[in-house]
């Protein structure tokens, strides 16, 4: 009886030691690092995380070569220099603090109106999360973005190098706003081109001065669109601006159904018409021919019969 209890106790002691050593091994390999949910490995792979090092141990025995009075130590409270001292990973907090400091430093510089500030695409929240590799709330990241937007408003001619460098860390790799649309033109034959989309249809239009003839995919308007409404939609841009008998349309349409094709043509003809007569833009906008209709079919979800329809409820 006595011998068996001794052996059990010894085994437990060995196991606890083993567990400890294994844990230490994990930590040294960096296995317990935080992986935020929903962050793809792509983002993680590109991040350059600074190695987090613990603060050096405080030495209370001496200060400036003199021994410290122990009564003083009982009276004062030691406050860490950074509020992130006690957090597991300080990247976000330090980042926020540095941006706040930067703003405080340069807040007296003259600013431009928000409309005149250069358009910048900041890193998306998910992207940032992958970069800092620590749990951050979206609202917190938004604070940084607000500061960045304020800093971005500093007059471009006075923009300090320091701010530029800091903002660079939060900019997306590719700025989509740098992508400028190529200016369209009327070619030597008097033809202007336009591209329009609606739902899943795409329409390409070649517009030239003429008598109001329309060919869509080599067919007449009546052969292409049986519905009168679709025909009127297709040439709505010309009709709304009283240009029906001034231009000939040659179009190629693909994808989608008849309504989508007709409304893709509306947009394409409007764009081609704007190349010929740019002053028609307000009229065309009033007629609803300038903006692409972004609505598309909502995806089907699991558990639903369609996008939103649920199966009939049954008692059991």
């Amino acid at each position, binding site marked *: 009886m006595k011998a068996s209890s001794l052996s059990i106790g010894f085994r437990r002691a060995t196991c606890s030691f083993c567990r400890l050593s294994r844990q230490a091994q994990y930590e040294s390999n960096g296995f317990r690092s935080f992986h935020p949910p929903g962050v793809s490995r792509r983002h993680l792979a590109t991040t350059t995380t600074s190695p987090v090092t613990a603060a050096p141990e405080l030495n209370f025995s001496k200060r400036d070569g003199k021994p410290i009075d122990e009564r003083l130590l009982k009276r004062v409270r030691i406050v860490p220099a950074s509020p992130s001292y006690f957090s597991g990973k300080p990247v976000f907090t330090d980042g926020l603090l540095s941006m706040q400091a930067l703003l405080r430093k340069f807040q007296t510089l003259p600013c431009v109106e928000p409309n005149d500030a250069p358009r910048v695409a900041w890193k998306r929240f998910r992207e940032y999360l992958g970069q800092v590799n620590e749990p951050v709330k979206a609202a917190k990241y938004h604070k940084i973005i607000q500061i960045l937007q304020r800093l971005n408003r500093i007059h471009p001619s006075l923009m300090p190098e320091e701010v530029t460098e800091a903002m660079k860390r939060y900019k997306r790799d590719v700025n989509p706003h740098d992508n400028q649309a190529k200016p369209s033109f009327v070619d030597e034959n008097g033809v202007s081109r336009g591209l329009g989309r609606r739902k899943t249809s795409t329409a390409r239009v070649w517009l030239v001065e003429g008598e*109001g003839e*329309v060919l869509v995919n080599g067919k007449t308007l*009546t*052969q292409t669109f049986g519905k*009168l409404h679709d025909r009127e939609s297709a*040439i709505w841009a010309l009709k709304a601006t009283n240009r*029906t*008998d001034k231009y000939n349309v040659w179009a190629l349409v693909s994808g989608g159904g008849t309504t989508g094709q007709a409304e893709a043509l509306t947009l394409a003809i409007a764009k081609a018409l704007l190349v010929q007569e740019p002053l028609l833009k307000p009229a065309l906008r009033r007629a609803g021919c300038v903006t692409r209709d972004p609505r598309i079919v909502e995806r089907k979800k699991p558990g639903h019969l369609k996008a939103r329809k649920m199966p009939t409820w049954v008692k059991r």
Partner: protein
Amino acid sequence: MKKTKVQKATSRAPAIGERKALRKRVILSNTNALEVDGMPDLFVGNMAVPEVAGKMVGLPGPVVDSLRAAEAFKVTQGWSLFRKPAVLMRSETVEMGKLIQNLDAQTENRKTIRKIIAGERGSGKSVLLLQAMAMAYLKGWIVINIPDAKDLVQNHAAYAPIPDSQPLLYLQKTLTASLLDRLQKSNPILTTLTLSKPHTFPLPLSPQTTLSDLALHGISDPDLAWPAFTILWTELTSPSSPIPGATRPPILLALDGLAHALINSHYLTRDAQPIHAHDLALVSFFLRYLRASPPTDLPNGGLVLAAMSASNAPSCPALRLAVSQSLARQRGEEVPEWDPYRKIDTRALEAVSGVDVLGVGGLSKVEARAVLEYYAASGVVRERVDARYVGEAWTVSGGGLVGELERGAVRMRV
């Protein structure tokens, strides 16, 4: 379980044929529509003059009666919207008027002209046929109209092989009787024409028997319809002479929905094999005169017109090929050939190849304007008919297709 009571209809059930009569009813006048001032009527003097081109003309009363009896008006056409039937003298109509004007049984111009009217849906093929018939009536011609070839082939009427016919032909006696009915009612001139020679007929025929009386025999007894029709046709195609009762005017043979006449019919032989439309006596009669090679001429001259239908047409590759070949020949382009590795109905191709094709397309803007002004004058279009309105209507109707023009301007508006 509780037995539910069957609700009995409280209203009267429609009588036999009532629904069909309603379906087939053609309304040619609308007293709510305004009368159009200054619109001339069609007559012999203005049917081929260039001045009338691009203008609307009314159809005179007797011609309207004849056309109605010949079933030339269709239910789907918009006659019921206007005070009286009126038609546009488009360029093709004026050309047709010239043809009819120049043909004459008495002179040397005893030609037989064959044409297939082809075009898009709503381009006015059937109305062009109607216009040709109207002008033929005005000129005192005999008009034989088959309003829809589909009626001949859809197996809705009694049929039987004609004994001793070589090749075997099938006769539809009720349809022959109704053809005679249309012929007799729509051609009042038949009452002035008498038999020129004795014929063998189950009933006694005197030399004073008019062709109208002969037709009436066939109408009253469908068993006599085919003999009556053959005698009538022999008489109509006999040489014309100036003696009263023996004159034989030119003939207009008209058929709509040609594709139905070129494929297998829905009738079956005794061995349950489909009967080709060409083996039906009535279809074969028409196609004999439409055929360009070898041609069978009308002895007193005349027109053989076959209109295609774009909305109710079975697939007929032979007709499609013949039409495209003829149009290519007219335009001086390369004539398309049939892919020898694909099947084609050679009988159908022989029947229609080489026949002139009259392509009907959209109206010009001037013609479209005349039509829209007529609509406005009749009170069915409220908009101001100006260049803008005409241009829009012309474009939306696919380049002035007259049927689409009517649909867009009149029917789809409230």
